[in-house]
């Protein structure tokens, strides 16, 4: 018998099938813009930090509800009042989280396994979201950096728009004339992940959305 304790566990994403059920039949999108993609990023480390107002932790996080920022390789997302999600590679997140002052009513929960995550990127990304979510995805209402929670295809999701930065680093700035396509991190309860991935792919079919 193999010693089960000797087998190294490997993280399994809840999104086990990334095959688009239907070929992306694109309309109204020229071929050179067709880089509209949906990528599974569930394996990123996510730590939920909750800290009451006026704690040191709140000042360290320094992100208001509805906004996000990149700091020390992690994205801090102000996803609810007094509630932040820190997203990044495991080492970066733990380094960051270890520095958080725990004085006062501050708590941490590892959400890596609770929340699946996918990234939708492309010039038509907001048009895809517009089909599955009732929010206004214009840059006035949901600019780069915005964070919002909403129902996507009937699943509760936390969404971060980060066109110009990712965990790890800011994106290498492209030529100034080039349009930076919008990019959204969509996090949902792990158990819904496969359903949601498929639903978004399906909605994006008309814009040529492909799994990345």
């Amino acid at each position: 018998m193999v010693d089960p304790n000797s087998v190294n566990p490997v993280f399994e994403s809840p999104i086990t099938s990334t095959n688009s059920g239907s070929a992306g039949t694109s309309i109204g999108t020229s071929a050179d813009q067709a880089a509209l993609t949906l990528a599974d990023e569930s394996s990123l480390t996510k730590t939920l930090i909750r800290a009451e107002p006026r704690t040191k932790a709140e000042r360290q996080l320094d992100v208001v509800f509805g906004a996000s920022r990149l700091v020390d390789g992690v994205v801090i997302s102000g996803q609810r009042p007094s509630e932040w999600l820190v997203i990044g590679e495991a080492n970066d997140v733990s380094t960051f989280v270890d520095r958080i002052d725990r004085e006062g009513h501050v708590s941490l929960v590892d959400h890596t396994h609770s929340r699946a995550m996918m990234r939708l990127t492309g010039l038509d990304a907001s048009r895809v979201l517009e089909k599955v979510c009732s929010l206004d995805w214009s840059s006035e209402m949901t600019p780069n950096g915005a964070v919002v929670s909403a129902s996507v295809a009937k699943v509760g999701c936390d969404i971060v728009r980060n066109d110009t930065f990712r965990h790890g680093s800011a994106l290498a700035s492209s030529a100034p004339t080039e349009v930076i396509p919008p990019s959204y991190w969509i996090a949902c309860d792990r158990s819904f992940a496969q359903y949601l991935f498929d639903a978004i792919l399906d909605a994006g079919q008309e814009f040529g959305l492909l799994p990345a």
Partner: protein
Amino acid sequence: MSGEFKPSRLGPQSGEVIDRSATIRFTWDSKVMTGFAGDTIASALMANGVRIVSRSMKYHRPRGYMTADYWDPNGFVQVGDDPNVRSGHRLLEPGMTIDPQNVWPSLDHDVKAANGFVGRFLTAGFYYKTFIRPQRLWPAFEKVLSTFAPGGTVDLDTPHRLHDKRYAHPDVVVAGGGPAGMAAAIAAAEAGARVMLVEHEHHLGGHLLWGSDEDRALAAKMRDAADVAGVEILTDSTVTGRYEDNWVSIVQRNHPLAVERLIKARATSLVVAPGLIERPYVFAGNDKPGVMLSGAVRRMINMYAVKPGSRAVVLTANADGDAAVADLRDVGVEVARVVDARAGENVASANGPGRTVESVTLGDGTSIDCDLLVTAVGWTAPTSLLNMAADRPVYDATAARFFPGGPIDTVLSTGGLTGDGTVEQLVEHGRATGRLAAERSAVAKHRIQAHTARAAPVSGDEPAWPHDLRAALGRDPHPELFRSTTHGIVDFSEDVSSKDLVGAAAEGFDSVELLKRFTTATMGPSQGKLETVNTVAVLAEARGETIEEVGTTVWRPPYAPITLGALAGRIFEPVRVSSIQPWHEANGAVDILAGAWKRPEHYGDPAAEVMNTRTNVGIIDVTPLGKLDLQGPDVPKLLSQLYTNKWMQLPVGSVRYGIMCAEDGVVLDDGVTARLGDEHYLMTTTSSGAATIWEWAENWLQTEHPEWQVHVTPVTTGLCSINIAGPNSRTLLGRLCPDIDLDPDAFPYMHVRTGTVAGVDDCIAWRIGFTGELSYEIHVPSGYGLHVWNALLDAGADLGIKPFGLEAQRIMRLEKGHFIVGQDTDGLTKAPSTGLAPLIKLDKDDFAGKAELGWALDEFASAESKAPRLVAIQPTDPTVVPHEASQIVRAGTNEILGRITSSRMSPTLGRSICLGQVAIDAAAPGTMLTIVLADGTRTTAEVMARHAHFDPEGERLRG
């Protein structure tokens, strides 16, 4: 009859929208015909000489095109599996199979037309007055009557083709693409607004399209300008409704991929510019084929190059009627007589004797032969969208039509709906409206952005609200023409005549709403677009009142009918699965849907799964179990508030069971909570209660006790939960848990430990006993859930490990006598009824339901208690398994004493076992109950002393 006029295609017309190079073949009533691309079904049929399109609903009278547009009440056809297609609007497509509806056996020879002869007896409301006696015959009558149902036929095999939906957040939606609507859209877009311009028809331009060449040139120019300004143009699309806070529904019928797409637009401003709908005139014979409205004639000639008649009489009260005269003459139709209503002339009847118009009798008695009678007697203002914004239209007798009532901040109107004018005046009014809409949207947007956390910051104060400084359009005088000296049809789709209305009013149905209900006028598919004003006018006349005094009816959404497919769109039905689901599916699990969760009910033989678990060891995936991570110094206070029992002293490493009640004392949920650390707890709830209990906890924390420091975080699927049950469970877990001491003294029943399972860190394991066996429930980070599951199966192979499903778990818990909230309890079951009264601790200061539970305990203890008791029950005949919900009655009577709430054949005991709710006088142990089985026979059963049928002392689970 021979020599009857047949409409035909004209030579090329300068405004035609058909493409003569693209011929389309189709069938009508099984005859092959051809038309052109750009034809509507109506124009193609008319070009092929078709005059009779349908039969009327009640009297089966022959009907031809009257308005020849979307609203034509006579133009309903069946296209393949699509019933009730508006042939005046639907574009012709190659290979279309088009058939008439409501005909039997055929369009030309309709037997039910006999209804027409007895029409004088079939007055409105006649059904109410007949078929009363003998009452037993009514069902037979009803069967016959239902064969008279109008409309097309549903093919029940119609697939739900691709329907799509989309949300939009435009600054301005303009409903109507005539000159004013286009102008409004252009002006708003030029002012910086995001604009959607929605036109019901296939082309922008409205009435310009059937006007002069200059009109059409203007339409084309504005269309281009709208494009340049960045307006999103949606043709063949309809704004079907305006709901709360300018939630605007738009049905797009010409989407390239979807059959139809429903767009839900949160419009900051809505501009209503639908134009006007021409009104039919009421007179004898007004529904004969050959009677057409002026707009229909002009569209047919100018847009579709169809000659509608050879010899016409035109009743005109306005410039549109005059223009129809000119158009008819231009294409060689003899206009035998222009009857000028402005000069007091009138039409009294359109006459047969055949099925189509052969002559017209004028008001002065003159009779003129003709095959076409055109009327132009005024308009209905389609104020539906304004009605939906609470506007009530106001009648203006001078202009002989209704106008919008008061102003609405975010809903503006323009075009013919608001007044008359030259094209230039309409365009100017439209532009002013578009600018105002854009300015108001900018203010509203500023406000929303300023109040929305995630939005881009806005600078400066909110701009002042722009006032409506538009110059109003004028109102041209128009004669009031509703009904002639004769009676005719008012509601063409319902076959209701003015005579019916007068009769109904005399009977007392003399308010608009009662009249509507009694006669069904305005209730049919055209929903009042053509007939509302005439209905009101005829009622006003009957009551000797004015139209203002009578008032009008409220137009209800939708503006135009919407297919169920479009409303449904893509159907989103989220399904949740645990990390282990791929294994279950690969290993023969039969799934069950529990709420949104898809989970294994069993793997083929639930009884064998029970026996294996009781004998060896079984594992079940219980991931759906609700799990809440609780942190903070005040967690015990929260637990004390939520559960009925005590929580202030729970030691670290312990697990406790509790029930939760609502404030009315009714059982809400149950489960165990473990204390993992000083200020760290893990609560479990029932699977179905997970979301509710989370919200319930937040509610207490946020509204009642904001001073308590507790963070509640749902971790249901962050932790993959596996219950390991059976005599071998300790041995099995021991092989995978190097760092947890499983010795019963070190890790007793109702305790919790954290450690490594199969190489996975941060796992939680606790000992509980839902199944009644020695069992460990482990919670592992979900990304490793499948890994641990496989490791258990591998490590337990020699221990007889087998997975078990929900059904085996249900059997085992019933053997053990554990109740399930929501099955063994119901919406009225208070906590004492479950048998867990000792868990209600009234000496706590407060907890949810405390007040009611105090009274409930007193009631429960009294001899007259009416509260049911949950008891274990065993049928006398061990092979009889009463189905769940079987009623327990007093012997020899039908008096209900309770019911079976759970029931199974126990594989362990080899007999049937039950839980049930019974009245106090049937609850004593040893009581023999009478149970009514599904087939009506009765059987007996005994009330047991304890809930547990199996191992009542709990020796196994504590082992």
